């Protein structure tokens, strides 16, 4: 029996260089897992591999027991906010509807049930009242919630979040952190990359430290006590501010 997301001994080569090596990670339904590592550790590459956008050089990725490939509605994906064209003249509801593009056939227009699904997704992230607003007029936190709503509209069983807290103030991070935890505890498998150590330690059910491979994984309490794992992951010494943050946490 494997988790909703099962990364089994995966290796990934990009540009002739091994970016991920022997990565093993499972995320169960109902679980929020934080993926933490330094810049260039391969966090986004791992998410892209789970999405089926990158073919692994070794190992395999299973989502709900089936090989990962693009278009599996079982996975919802929330990209980094700067990857999205926020200046595009489209409403919040219009953005959420694009989450159904692949499931609607060519030339088909959305029907009432699709708008209903969009409304439910927006309601879930508490953005329904802004459904008609142009996305360019939203704040950073609202934008993040719109992307989450778009990822939810196809009712996926797993969610992948790529650094959702970047550039957001602390209250907004807390709000989103609670939302992600709730989404997981409703029965989804949620895997989130983040640089926000405190947020991850506070909100995630489990944390995986990644630097080309999974260096360590465990509950926040277990990892907070494992200073060596953090030092190995980030390549820092005993005097690093990172370890002081861990201690304070």
């Amino acid at each position, binding site marked *: 029996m494997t988790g909703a997301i099962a990364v089994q001994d995966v290796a990934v080569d990009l*540009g002739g260089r091994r970016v991920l090596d022997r990565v093993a990670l499972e995320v169960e339904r109902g679980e929020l897992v934080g993926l933490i590592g330094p810049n260039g550790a391969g966090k986004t590459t791992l998410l*892209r591999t789970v*999405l*089926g*956008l990158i073919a692994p050089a070794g190992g395999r990725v299973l989502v709900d027991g089936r090989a990962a*490939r*693009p*278009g*599996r509605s079982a*996975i919802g*994906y929330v*990209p980094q906010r700067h*990857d*999205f*064209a926020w200046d*595009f*003249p*489209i*409403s919040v*509801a*219009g*953005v959420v*509807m*694009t*989450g159904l*593009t*692949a499931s*609607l056939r*060519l*030339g088909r*227009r*959305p029907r*009432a049930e699709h*708008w*209903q699904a*969009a*409304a*439910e997704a*927006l*309601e879930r992230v508490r953005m*329904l009242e802004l*459904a*008609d607003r*142009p996305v*360019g*007029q939203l704040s950073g936190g609202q934008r993040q919630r719109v992307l989450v709503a*778009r990822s939810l509209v*196809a009712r996926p069983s797993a969610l992948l979040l790529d650094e959702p807290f970047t550039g957001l103030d602390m209250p907004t991070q807390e709000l989103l952190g609670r939302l992600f935890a709730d989404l997981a505890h409703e029965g989804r498998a949620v895997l989130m990359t983040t640089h926000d150590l405190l947020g991850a330690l506070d909100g995630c059910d489990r944390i995986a430290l990644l630097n080309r491979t999974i260096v360590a994984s465990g509950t926040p309490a277990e990892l907070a006590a494992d200073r060596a794992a953090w030092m190995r992951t980030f390549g820092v010494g005993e005097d690093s501010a990172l370890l002081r943050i861990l201690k304070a946490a």
Partner: protein
Amino acid sequence: MLTPAQFLADLLNPDLAFLPKALAIAVMSSLICGAVGTFVVLRGMAFIGDAVAHAVFPGLAVAFVVSGNLVLGGTIAGVITAVLVAVFSQNRRLKEDSIIGVFFVAAFALGIVIIAQAPGYAGSLQQFLFGSITGIPDSDLVVVAVTGLVVLAALFALHKEFVTISLDRESARAMGVKVFWFDLALYVLVTLAVVISVQTIGNILVLALLITPAATARLLTDRLGVMMLLGPAIGAGGALVGLYLSWSWALPTGGTIVLVLTAVFLLVWIGRPTRVRELLQRRPGRPARTLVASP
């Protein structure tokens, strides 16, 4: 200067039969370019629009030399160049704009070499580069109208896919949307819009029909649907006024249309677009039944 009434009389004058045909082609081209141009502007594809505009030239030249169908020739050349750009852009060592720069200049050069084989090519070259409102055959009206309808129908049918890949290509790929093929489809539509517009406005200036009306519309609205209506309307209005002014003052038609469109763009830019935008956005909300979540 002619009065509008005199211009109307000239349009109805049987001895000036080319004039209403030129007007019809200019307006149809502007409508189609305005609609396609929406995505060109929103995706920051002005350079590829320029590239496609130039890339159709060898196809037009071949069709001209062999007395073939200009629309077909231009489309084939434009699509071949678009495919070459899409394929060569897969190499990550070079950015897409460099690939476009290589191919569109090469295509244009090929067009010049080919058309030089035609006797009296200088006049033909002038016509291709800057457009001409005389000598438009009736068959071209039909070709432009049918091609335009095909382009608009395709835009309508592929609307949600074009929006999805314009917003965020990585997420579109993750959803299983075939980004490469929809990019190619958009390039083909741009190519078709360019080809049917070359007759009136010329190869050099056709980019203005794609970009300027849509860019002006973008200044006026934050709604994609409104923008897709405003862009063609501004383009068609610019074509009408441009043709009128060029006919009145014996100015080059293509250049005059572009200058009129540019003047409208500048007026909108200098004016207070936020006020107009607010007016355009004051519309009834989406029907409650469509966006009410279950209790």
